[in-house]
């Protein structure tokens, strides 16, 4: 079943706030080998002008991957997740994510196309603080491979 292009432009309700923890940033930074002290030591982060430890640039995917389940699991759209592979990924920052942020995601379906039996689903997730300050916009293109 191909993806319904009429879903393009659909925006989903904001997700529940995600509390960015200092230990989560440290854990993620360690897992990707990011050893810069600003990811681990609040003093080092403050020296760069941040209120607390700074997340590495791909950290928001921890939040947005969970948030976009809203779309992927939308029964009306009908994505078969077992056939999904990651196509593209992009982050456009207003400012880095820091420990202490409380972040809300708003998901929009930006594009749906199909080619050669494969479906292509582009989502944009606007990540903002609970106060409404924009932090980062995150785009993912998922490829729903055709059934063999």
């Amino acid at each position, binding site marked *: 079943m191909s993806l319904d292009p009429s879903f393009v432009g659909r925006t989903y309700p904001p997700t529940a706030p995600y509390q960015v923890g200092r230990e989560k940033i440290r854990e993620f930074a*360690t897992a990707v080998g*990011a050893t810069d002290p600003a990811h681990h030591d609040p003093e080092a982060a403050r020296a*760069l002008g941040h209120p607390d430890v700074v997340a590495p640039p*791909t950290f928001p995917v921890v939040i947005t*991957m969970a948030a976009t389940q809203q779309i992927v699991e939308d029964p009306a759209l009908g994505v078969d997740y077992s056939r999904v592979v990651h196509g593209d*990924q*992009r982050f*456009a*920052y207003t400012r880095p994510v820091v420990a202490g942020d409380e972040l809300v995601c708003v998901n929009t379906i930006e594009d749906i196309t199909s080619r050669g039996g494969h479906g292509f689903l582009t989502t944009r997730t606007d990540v903002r603080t609970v106060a409404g300050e924009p932090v980062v916009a995150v785009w993912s293109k998922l490829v729903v491979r055709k059934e063999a």
Partner: protein
Amino acid sequence: MELPAQTYRVTRADLVRYAGASGDFNPIHWNERTATGVGLPGVIAHGMFTMALVGRAVAGWAGAPDAVVDFGVRFTRPVVVPDTDEGTEVEVSAVVKETTEEGLTRLDITATCRGEKVLSQARALIRTAG
């Protein structure tokens, strides 16, 4: 201008650690049976793990952990990680493409594994010190 290439070793242990830290527990990133069952040559790295390694290289070139303004990649080929102590290696290189009107630096990035490109359209826009 070419920036100095960075090489990162990737083992199965790295993938397990990344799965835990990121919450992406898709078994194709740790279970050989699942990976080969869906037609992959073996366990593959999370695309987002490869992108994170590129992010490390970019931060290193920028000389700051908070320099990335815009960062995008396309995943074109999986990074296959064998079940050995050595695992595999990802090499990341880049050229400085331009300085934008806002004073930001645009990088065109290449990431390879075993001599083959694993990303395309990999680009970063960074703030540079000074």
